[in-house]
């Protein structure tokens, strides 16, 4: 329930709705977008960044949060850890989200024995939290080429065209595979896959399962994983370091058993790193939509092993994170709401940006409103703008929200806010790591036998990811890396060493870096400041 102090504002949103319907903010020209991003997008706030002093990307501009992780030591004593493998397997998959499970399934299908290790419970991931949908060019008026064009444009042409081409061309076949294993995509009456618009798309391309797309995919993937005895599962065992052989190729990992509080070593012929993103690092103090485990572990592990990174200074701030009530701060309101035509409204009752602009532009516009006095304050001192959702019921008829967005409707009914009548207070929330470990089309990083899939991988989305491309990316590169990793099953992994860690520490010391931070972080400490 909204407290009284919001009533005047909420009335203003209701009173200005009719008039707002006819005042559509014009799409911005390329120059205007660039200026808006430069002034207001967190990626352009120089105080949030520094140049990395060590490693393959030395000299690159990265967030302080990543630099802190990369310029630090681990709590693992690399000189004393037991490197005799407790488990030996063909393919070691690290991460139990959509990318990891897909990689495991495809590696197994090509004859590999697989160990899938995950920090939390299988499936606890950002995949489950993907609400709106997945892109795939299946609509009549669409094509993979158009999907390619939209993705490149959304990313500011910073994405690697080979990776983007691989992703969009695999899209339709991925959909076919998902249907085969029992994913129930929304359909039109004639049986066609339903496709919808989103910000920055030139054709309807979003496939969805209500507003619980990722959840329903993850449920099926988890179930599917249990069909085979050749995939072993290890939950609550985060990876804390990779191992390399004498030639520097990856050949396993050190895992930490959270229950027993001890380290153990796994030897593998290939390793697939799919531990997701880094929202829980809370860049620049932003709230996040990410799950508990999103602490950027992949970046730390791969970087110490010598892998090249890409775009570690680029994050996606999803425009519509919840700002009230307090305990839901950062939680996502799906972009599909804006895709359908909901208005963003400032404290003066005005629309201030075309809601179908790409996410980076919309976020920058919201931050502009909030820093220039057009935002709405909350009791705890936070600021946001209104997302006028009730307008959708007027545009499409009563009952639309309950039918199309049952999860959202219920989520707010629990706190007695009826989204068919009341607007929601929103502000950009740290959503996605646009960059990551640089991969090639097979998913392999610059370290041999180390594959990376999902949000941890970089090079695909450029400087801004379009809605629905993350869900596609996890399947495409999960599959590709699983297949390529299984192709390594005839090779000898070699001796397990932590030489790369010793070398890395040597360089840290020679730079007189003596960080107190320990990485990988594994679990966030954000609770303290919240309370």
């Amino acid at each position, binding site marked *: 329930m909204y407290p009284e102090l919001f009533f005047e504002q909420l009335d203003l949103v209701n009173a200005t709705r009719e008039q707002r319907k006819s005042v559509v903010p014009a799409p911005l020209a390329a120059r205007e977008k660039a200026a808006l991003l430069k002034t207001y997008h967190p990626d352009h706030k120089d105080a949030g960044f520094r140049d990395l002093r060590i490693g393959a990307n030395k000299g690159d501009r990265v967030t302080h949060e990543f630099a802190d992780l990369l310029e630090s030591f681990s709590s693992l004593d690399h000189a004393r850890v037991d490197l005799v493998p407790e488990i030996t397997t063909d393919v070691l998959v690290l991460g139990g989200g959509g990318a990891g499970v897909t990689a495991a399934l495809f590696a197994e299908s090509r004859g590999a024995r697989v160990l899938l290790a995950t920090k*939390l419970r299988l499936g606890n991931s950002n995949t489950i939290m993907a609400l709106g949908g997945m892109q795939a060019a299946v609509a009549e008026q669409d094509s*993979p080429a158009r999907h390619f*064009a939209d993705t490149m*444009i959304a990313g500011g042409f910073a994405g690697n065209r080979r990776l983007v*081409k691989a992703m969009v061309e695999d899209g339709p076949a991925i959909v076919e595979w998902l249907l085969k294993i029992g994913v*129930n995509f929304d359909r039109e009456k004639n*049986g066609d896959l339903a496709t919808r618009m989103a910000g920055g798309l030139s054709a309807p391309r979003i496939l969805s399962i209500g507003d619980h797309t990722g959840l*329903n995919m993850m449920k099926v993937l988890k179930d599917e994983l249990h069909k085979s005895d050749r995939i072993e599962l290890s939950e609550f065992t985060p990876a804390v370091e990779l191992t390399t052989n004498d030639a520097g190729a990856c050949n396993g990992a050190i895992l930490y058993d959270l229950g027993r509080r001890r380290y153990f070593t796994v030897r593998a012929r290939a390793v697939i790193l799919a531990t997701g993103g880094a929202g829980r690092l809370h860049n620049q103090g932003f709230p996040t939509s990410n799950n508990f485990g999103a602490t950027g572990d992949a970046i730390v592990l791969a970087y110490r092993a010598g892998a090249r990174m890409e775009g570690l200074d680029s994050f996606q701030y999803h425009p519509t994170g919840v700002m009230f009530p307090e305990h839901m701060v950062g939680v*996502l309101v799906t972009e599909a709401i804006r895709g359908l035509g909901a208005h963003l409204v400032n404290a003066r009752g005005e629309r201030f940006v075309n809601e179908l602009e790409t996410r980076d532009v919309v976020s920058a516009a919201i931050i502009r409103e909030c820093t220039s006095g057009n935002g709405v304050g909350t009791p705890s001192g936070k600021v946001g703008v209104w997302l006028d959702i009730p307008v959708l019921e007027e545009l499409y008829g009563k009952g639309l929200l309950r039918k199309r967005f049952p999860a959202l409707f219920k989520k707010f009914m629990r706190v007695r806010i009826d989204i068919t009548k009341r607007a929601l207070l929103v502000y950009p929330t740290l959503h996605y790591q646009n960059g990551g470990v640089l991969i090639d089309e097979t998913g392999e990083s610059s370290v041999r036998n180390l594959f990376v899939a999902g949000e941890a991988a970089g090079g695909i989305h450029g400087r801004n990811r379009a809605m629905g491309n993350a869900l596609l990316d996890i399947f495409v590169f999960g599959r590709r890396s699983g297949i390529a990793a299984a192709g390594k099953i005839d090779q000898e992994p070699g001796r397990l060493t932590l030489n790369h860690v010793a070398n890395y520490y040597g360089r840290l010391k020679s730079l007189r870096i003596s960080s107190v931070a320990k990485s990988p972080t594994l679990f966030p400490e954000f609770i303290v400041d919240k309370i």
Partner: protein
Amino acid sequence: MITIELEGRQIRVPEGLTVIEALWDTGHDVKRGIGCLSGLCGACTVAYLEAGAQRVKFGLGCQTVVAEGMNVIMLPYFPSRMARYDLAAMDNPLGELPEHYPELYACNDCKSCNVCPEWIHVANFVKSARDGEYAITADKVKDCHMCGLCASRCPKSIAPQYVGLYIQRACARGEAMPANLAKRLQEMAAPAYDTDFAGVMAMSDDELKDYCRKLACAIKES
């Protein structure tokens, strides 16, 4: 500050915390049972008794705010049997449901399972599953997080979340291939497939930009 009973211990905590935040605040190093922190993944189920209430309620720990006098514990897992099967290899998965989940047919519609934090009417979909009305079940379980609270209440040890998922998957697999997808796959398999697009690798950066912008605009205008 308010006083609550948390994991069997009376303790004072700040107002406005969720159950999970209250656990963290009081030194419980909880990791098992924490997931998305957004009310989506079903990892953090809790059972609680409100002050003066007689009936135990269930919810998600990340979305349930503690209140004065609340008695609450985490219930992050309940043992329930999950069938193993290879859906892609089955001819008639719906027909095989009784083999995989025979206990389903012991359901006497007692409705004890209606404790869903997502407000799914579990008894309804279990009944439609038992009676072979699979489409109804498949539709109703779309919002299921698989938290398993319903299974913890069933006197017949039915696991509605797994039965629901089986049916959801089987129904999806049983549907016809979508015509729009089939057509796209066919187009892409044909030798003539987008020869224009194949050239993007060789383009200069400026050519690539032009190519992309033209494609994106052409559609918007049509």
